């Protein structure tokens, strides 16, 4: 009998597991895949370790800012800053139809860029920043539109869209618009605090977290899909695994998303409102280092858009290459240059179309759209196709298969269950569908739900 069973070995599940195990709860994490990490994981192809999810972490903060989300997170997990070798971004850029805004982890840079590119709007932009600084996004209130808030203050639509794109693509479940609270969280995470990543790969980061979890006595089982949750007298009393084994527990925390959790427990409600619309295709290419000088060696992430209106929504076609993200995971300050430069491209994709493809046509369609994504990125960073030594892509269908996120919606639906509660008194939710997004957000989600609901509960021994 475990005190706590955690479904999903992604970052929210591992963070939750560390908290629970740290204070003596007998804890088991069940992960269906053969690697941990969930949405932020890795796989091997032809000797290359390729990361999924992670482009950069947000919310960089110096060690002295004790209450910054990053430092609070590390303290909660009983980890020390010196255990991580953190590298800040070099600079990122938002490029729309020939206009550009550069930003770094120093917010002064973005303000100067707004003054340069949108001189008529810079005073208004300063007011927006001030309002954001004074807005408390964590007190529950009626939903407000971020687009409306921005339109009330900024009168140049292109500036509004340029500011929204990075925040949406790294943490907005909703199509077209964004909840104002979520906008404020993301604005601070990206434009005020900024991007960084730990040295090494996501595997190194996951290994470090899992060592901490194991040191506190936590257990993890990989390749261990859950077939369903077991209910007795209105409470969950464990899980039945795909191979028939039954694991009993006093409490269960699901990070598999609301639709998948509903399936596991016969939740008497429709999963439909909780299925998100935004999913992505990601293409990874490797090019030899010698070509890298021509490929934006001084940029960490590029956010681009070409054409009229920015369409942050599920595209009509398989892929929308009119906007996207190009990330250079090797371009963080102080990282040793690798032999091969990695370029990662993200574009919005239509899950329903990808799902309908037959196994025969899927590879060919994927090749075709990978080409389209590469061609779109070459317009931004110059030609590199002829020097590609390795490339791979994954689609919304791949994301769904490996992460159980319904329809590959990496940010879930815009409807969140913020208190993490379910119709069962000892079944809780954490992760994407609880409401904090991104790597730092999902880990804080796992921590918060364990703090609020699980640690405070008395446990038998």
């Amino acid at each position, binding site marked *: 009998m475990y005190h706590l069973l955690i479904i999903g070995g992604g970052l929210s599940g591992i963070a939750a597991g560390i908290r629970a195990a*740290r*204070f*003596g709860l007998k804890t088991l994490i069940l992960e269906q895949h053969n690697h941990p990490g969930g949405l932020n994981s890795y796989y091997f192809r032809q000797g290359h370790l390729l990361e999924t999810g992670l482009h950069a972490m947000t919310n960089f903060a110096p*060690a002295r800012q*004790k*209450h910054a989300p990053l430092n*609070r997170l590390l*303290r*909660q997990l*009983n980890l*020390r800053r010196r255990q991580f070798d953190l590298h800040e971004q070099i600079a990122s850029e938002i490029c729309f139809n020939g206009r550009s805004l550069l930003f770094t982890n120093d917010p002064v840079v973005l303000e100067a860029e707004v003054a340069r590119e949108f001189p008529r709007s810079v005073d208004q932009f300063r007011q927006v920043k001030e309002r954001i600084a004074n807005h408390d996004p964590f007190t529950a209130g009626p939903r407000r539109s971020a687009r409306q808030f921005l339109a009330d203050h900024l009168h140049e639509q292109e500036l509004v869209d340029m500011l929204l794109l990075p925040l949406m693509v790294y943490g907005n479940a909703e199509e077209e618009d964004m909840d104002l609270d979520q906008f404020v969280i993301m604005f601070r995470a990206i434009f005020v605090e900024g991007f960084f990543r730990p040295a090494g790969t996501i595997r190194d980061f996951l290994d470090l977290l899992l060592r901490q979890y194991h040191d506190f006595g936590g257990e993890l089982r990989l390749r261990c899909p859950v077939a369903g949750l077991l209910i007795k007298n209105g409470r969950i009393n464990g899980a039945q695994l795909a191979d028939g084994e039954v694991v009993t527990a006093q409490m269960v925390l699901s990070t598999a998303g609301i639709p998948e959790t509903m399936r596991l427990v016969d939740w008497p409600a429709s999963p439909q409102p909780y299925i998100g619309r935004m999913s992505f295709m990601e293409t990874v290419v490797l090019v030899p280092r010698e070509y890298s000088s021509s490929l934006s060696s001084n940029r960490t992430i590029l956010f681009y858009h070409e054409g009229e209106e920015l369409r942050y929504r599920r595209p009509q076609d398989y892929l929308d290459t009119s906007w996207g993200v190009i990330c250079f995971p090797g371009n963080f300050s102080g990282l040793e240059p690798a032999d091969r430069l990695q370029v990662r491209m993200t574009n919005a994709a239509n899950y329903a179309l990808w799902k309908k493809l037959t196994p025969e046509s899927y590879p060919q369609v994927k090749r075709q759209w990978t080409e389209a994504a590469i061609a779109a990125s070459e317009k931004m960073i110059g030609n590199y196709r002829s020097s590609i030594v390795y490339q791979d892509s994954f689609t919304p269908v791949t994301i769904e298969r490996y992460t159980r996120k319904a329809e590959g919606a990496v940010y879930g639906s815009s409807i969140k269950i913020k208190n993490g509660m379910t119709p069962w008194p000892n079944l809780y939710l954490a992760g994407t569908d609880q409401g904090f997004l991104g790597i730092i957000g999902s880990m804080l989600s796992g*921590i918060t739900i364990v*703090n609020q609901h699980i*640690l*405070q509960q*008395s446990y038998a021994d």
Partner: protein
Amino acid sequence: MTRNEIKDILLEIIADIDEEADFASLDADAPLRDQLDLDSMDFLDIVMELRKRYKLQIPEEEYPQLATLTSCVSYLEPKLKDV
């Protein structure tokens, strides 16, 4: 446990939560949270660590009694007298 032992345990627990915590100028009769810049999540960790180590159940309504180092020691003294 003596009052001094309890105090040492508390400082050890706080140091494990925040290794930067500076005890040199700590006023035992002033609120810990303000002096050490602890937030509510850090504070929960002190309570959880006491529970883990000594099986102490501290109900939420009694948290105010843990405000200062001196009040913590006074609150814990009867509960830890046999430890």
